[in-house]
């Protein structure tokens, strides 16, 4: 049952990531950047809300995990050479900040 919830969340998250990348990724991967930041915010929020196991499997492990991507982030960074350093630093720092913000909102 838990695996099914992870699968459903992962399917929706991955499709949404691809759609936003399709619409927004250009020279700078704005869409991929956005899903990584939003997914990190949501996982921080869900963690603070102490969701029950099933809901966390669907929304956290499944949806947030499917929405965000480290593989594309790394490949996009590598392909952009020196400009990739800025993209990588921005993603890691802003996603971490968004996660902390989400956690803070969830605790309030």
């Amino acid at each position, binding site marked *: 049952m838990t695996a099914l919830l992870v699968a459903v969340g992962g399917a929706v998250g991955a499709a949404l990531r691809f759609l936003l990348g399709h619409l927004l990724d250009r020279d700078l991967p704005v869409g991929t950047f956005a899903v990584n930041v939003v997914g990190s915010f949501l996982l921080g929020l869900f*963690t603070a809300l102490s969701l029950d196991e099933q809901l966390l499997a669907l929304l956290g492990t499944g949806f947030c995990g499917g929405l965000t*991507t480290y593989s594309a982030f790394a490949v996009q960074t*590598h392909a952009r050479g020196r400009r990739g350093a800025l993209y990588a630093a921005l993603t890691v720092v802003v996603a971490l900040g968004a996660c902390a913000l989400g956690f803070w909102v969830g605790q309030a």
Partner: protein
Amino acid sequence: MTPPLPRLLAAVALGGAVGAVLRHAVGEAVPDGSGFPWTTFAINVSGAFALALLPALAAVRRSRTLAVALGPGVLGGWTTLSATSEQGRSLLDQGRPALAAAYLLGTLLTALAAVTVASHWSRPEEQAAFAAEEGDR
């Protein structure tokens, strides 16, 4: 022939479900624990390596549907930046900034090194074609 967007989305969704379930299963079998999150680290580094390897596969170069099912689908579902952010946040919250920095920077540098190595198996034009087909999302 370019497959229509709904078909690409369906392929990504299917692959994403598979990748997320695999990540979940590995996380259950080998939990991250309270120190350096080695399991998530290994998931992200292996996923980055595999994504950079895809342009080397003839079957992936032939089929855009397969490219997005495996890249943005399976490997996008397998890897996670949200869990990495949350683990970094949690380590900072526990007053372990050095470990948080080592984890976040260590994941980034190791994943980039893995991509560099995997890129040796395909030509730059094959990598560019893979990106143009949105395999790198």
